[in-house]
């Protein structure tokens, strides 16, 4: 259990590790889904190809899209792509990095499905049983079979219990042949994917390593910034609610005290702390403009000294400033009001 907890904490430690965990779970789930799925070849001439190729290709596509849907970074990428420029420039390299890393993770479950399907062999057997070379493997000169009739008989190869063409071509021979081709395809596919992954991983540092490091840093930054913003908003909402409810109770008691001529209640001690956490935002319209500015006009990536900190300057501005503050040198001092 200790080991499990360590793994769980490690995967939770940042968004990338978490996504790696999800990606691994989806790969296992795709293998499990394939074994749970009851493959059922229709054994009819045109349906076989559609069914076989459908089972080979449609679930991987679904798993690929599911990999994107489950990835929280998708909305982050779309938001970063569509936001107005404001005071903060947009770096297409960062967007490309985010998209590539999401696509790479989303590819793993479909590759697992395709490999497992090909290595198992049922799909290829079902799809291509009508194209078996009867001249070499069977007895083509057997009389009494027209083209259509032969196709109908061959289509029943995957269904042993209704196969009636044993004189034309033995069922086991055809199945073994098709399965051999399927497994060869499967192993070649796995080899190809592994080679590609190896080449990408080993050759990438030879090109654009500096840009890669920069893009990775800023994509992590955007992710962390969004999380912190959500946490700050939640904390703010909590303090706002606390103060709002306290005021409500006080308002009621003041009304009642006015009738009884008592002195008004003093503010409870913990109201002070809750008020501080409000960060100066004390009503609905101010909060709405804060949220609007966050999207329309994100602050520049330039930390300032507290004494020099001025307003965001985004209210009412629609056009970006003359020179965009692309951060070439960051200030060393760490300043945070969170």
């Amino acid at each position, binding site marked *: 259990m200790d080991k499990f907890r360590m793994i769980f904490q490690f995967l939770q430690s940042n968004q990338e590790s978490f996504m790696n965990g999800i990606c691994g779970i989806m790969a296992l789930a795709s293998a499990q889904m394939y074994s749970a799925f009851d493959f059922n070849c229709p054994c009819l001439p045109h349906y076989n190809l559609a069914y076989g190729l459908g089972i080979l290709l449609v679930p991987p596509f679904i798993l690929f*899209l599911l990999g994107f849907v489950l990835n929280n970074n998708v909305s982050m990428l779309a938001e970063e792509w569509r936001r107005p420029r404001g005071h903060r420039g947009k770096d297409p390299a960062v967007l490309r990095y985010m998209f590539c890393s999401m696509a790479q993770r989303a590819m793993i479950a479909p590759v697992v499905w395709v490999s497992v399907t090909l290595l198992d062999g049922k799909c290829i057997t079902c799809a291509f049983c009508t194209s078996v070379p009867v001249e070499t493997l069977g007895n083509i000169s057997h009389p009494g079979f027209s083209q259509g009739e032969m196709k109908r008989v061959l289509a029943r190869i995957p269904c042993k219990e209704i196969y009636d063409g044993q004189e034309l071509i033995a069922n086991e021979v055809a199945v073994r042949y098709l399965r051999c081709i399927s497994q060869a395809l499967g192993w070649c596919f796995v080899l190809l994917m592994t080679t590609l992954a190896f080449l990408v991983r080993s050759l990438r540092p030879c090109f654009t390593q500096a840009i890669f490091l920069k893009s990775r840093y800023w994509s992590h930054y955007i992710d962390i910034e969004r999380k912190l913003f959500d946490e700050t908003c939640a904390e703010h909402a909590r303090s706002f609610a606390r103060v709002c409810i306290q005021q409500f109770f006080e308002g009621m008691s003041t009304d009642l005290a006015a009738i009884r001529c008592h002195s008004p209640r003093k503010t409870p001690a913990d109201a002070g702390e809750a008020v501080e956490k409000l960060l100066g935002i004390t009503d609905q319209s101010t909060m709405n403009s804060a949220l609007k500015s966050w999207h329309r006009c994100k602050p520049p990536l330039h930390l300032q000294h507290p004494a020099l900190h001025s307003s965001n300057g985004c209210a009412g501005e629609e056009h970006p400033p003359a020179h965009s503050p692309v951060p070439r040198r960051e200030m060393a001092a760490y300043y945070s009001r969170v």
Partner: protein
Amino acid sequence: MDCFRMIFQYFQSNSESVMNGICGLLALASVKIYTCFDFSCPCLPWYNMAYGLGIMFIPSVIFLFCGLILNRQSLVMLEEWSRPQGSRKKDPAVIRYMCSSIMQRAMVAPIVWIIVTLLDGKCLICAFSGSVDPEKFVGFANTTPVQVQQLLAKVPCKDDELMRNNTSRKAVSRYLRCWSQALGWSILLILIIAAFLARWFRPCFDQVTLLQAHHWSNYIDIEQKIFEETCCEHSRQFAHKCILHFFESMREEIKLHSFRLPREGEGAEREEDLLRGIANQDQVNKLLKMWYYEKPPLNVSQVTHR
């Protein structure tokens, strides 16, 4: 047990996670219930379709209602929708946002049930075995229409004496199952494409309204929780004071004949503080009524200016 506790703590960390956890549990429950359920097709001409389609749709409606009932946010949303305006105006965007997030989560378990049903195939074979074209299958081509209907209705029952080793039955069964699985995968594909497009293109439309609606719907949820906690605390103090008062009044009667002065502890003043001046049933009832009929405005600036 440790791993359950960790998973539980992760899901409890905020109310969205709780809802996602419940939604996931319902989806797993629907798969488990399907595997445990003993499907038993009646194999009679009109009953098949009713049974097959009934098993496909009725449990999904039940799961939909379960998803709505188990989600705490649906009550919060209904309250927000039905409350009188008072000093706090209502934002339809917030209500729409809450409604759509509740419906999305509630739809997961019914969709999982329908897809598992279609991928398994038994329901569709049972419902539509009588609607298959008998000309396509050798064993059913040369019989009278009434007999054909009866035979086709028996296709889902493998152990029936007429159907036991019938190759045409197996052909019809395979044909219907193939269609059922194709339908299941297609529905899954369409839904995933829709979810993918929604996730990609949502930030392109009105991201500001979305941020604001998300924030205020979260706020309403937190406010409701804190109000309940405050009321709980208040009622605890109320009960404490009430009982102490009762014992005091009993003691007063006994002390009537003695000369000891009643003690005034500092504890009494502190407890009065916690009661915030609301110290009898009518006042509490009035407070609860005001909370519903006239929620306070979203403006706490008077505190900061004191």
